[in-house]
């Protein structure tokens, strides 16, 4: 039992991201409303961002990756130690991923607006009904 608790406690960050991801995936597949699907998509992306960020953490008092007293001309007299700062790379990567997810969200919302314009609804089954009414069932 204690092993299990160790396992769980030691890796709770991964549990959290997996849970978020499942929520996002569920929303994308199960929800009929396109806006909710888009929200699910965003949750899904956020879960992955959480995963990356959590890998950057370092125990033992590591600080944010900004070198203290780093002002002035930068030669290596400051001598930063890797263990003192958390891993900057995942943060960099996720800055990019956040921007990408925002951009995707923007385009997705744009298309949702267009769909709403066209069919007057964002419910998938109602849209399907309208399409059937318009085209007489042909694809």
């Amino acid at each position, binding site marked *: 039992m204690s092993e299990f608790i160790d396992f769980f406690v030691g890796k709770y960050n991964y549990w959290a991201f997996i*849970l978020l991801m499942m929520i996002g995936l569920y929303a994308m597949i199960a929800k009929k409303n396109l806006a909710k699907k888009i929200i699910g998509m965003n949750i899904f992306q956020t879960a992955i961002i959480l995963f990356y960020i959590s890998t950057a953490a370092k125990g033992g008092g590591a600080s944010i990756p900004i070198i203290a007293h780093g002002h002035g001309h930068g030669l290596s007299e400051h001598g930063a130690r890797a263990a003192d700062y958390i891993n900057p790379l995942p943060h960099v990567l996720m800055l990019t991923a956040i921007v990408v997810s925002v951009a995707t969200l923007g385009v997705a919302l744009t298309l949702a607006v267009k769909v709403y314009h066209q069919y007057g609804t964002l419910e998938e089954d109602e849209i399907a009904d309208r399409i059937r009414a318009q085209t007489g069932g042909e694809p």
Partner: protein
Amino acid sequence: MKLVALASALLCGTILLFGTAEFPDFGDPDSPAASHVSPRYIEEAMAETSAPNIVTAVLADYRGFDTLFETAVVFSAAMACFFLLRIFGEDERRPSEKLYRHLPTGITLRIDPGGKVPDSPEFERIDGIWIPHDVIVKTTTRLIIPFIQLFGLYVIAHGHHSPGGGFQGGVILGASVILYAISQNLRQALGRMGEAVSAVFCAAGVFIYAGAGALCLLMGANFLDYSGLAPLFGVDAIQARSLGILVVEIGVGLAVMSAMVWIYYNLASMGRHQEGL
């Protein structure tokens, strides 16, 4: 459908959980991620790029190429919104009546489609959802906006030393314009920062970034190798990197700000740039 969704989500989750057993623990300082590539950034970034904020150094220099395309993603998203949504001219499905407000008296005229439009400067065209009295909101935002913008500039400029940089600063700047648009109205915001300005600024921001990289090429260095710009700045190679980072951060800030504003314009008014939020 719900069952299928639940099943696939659970399946996906279980498979992923199964993998976590071999993961390094949370915060493990000896994990491969913490010990292979990243130590060099922490230990050398200051010496190599003269930027104490390691995230900025990695973002804009070591992995500056990623960031260039990150900016391009923002630009393409804004362009995509414009491409998909923008409706030019009058919306044919709703031939709109036009509303004009006589400024001195506050009287609103409704001009039916095809009617004569008053062309005196005393008349201002307004939207149907125009709300006359929102003095508190308008005044407060007018007071706040300059400070927001100042802070945005600070965040861009201070990205070397503190959390911040082009993206963050750009978003803050963009937010200030969006706040203006929300508190006043879309028409006025467009008057301050028109669509063409947003579009060209957005492209120009990315162009500054990519152009800086291309300039390095012209100077004989690799793409985005700012040390090649040293002769232009008149400083040594490491300082040149630091300055190069600043230049691209400015470009990013410009692009992100304009992109935010531009996306807002199109989304808020469904591409008609009138009757919007």
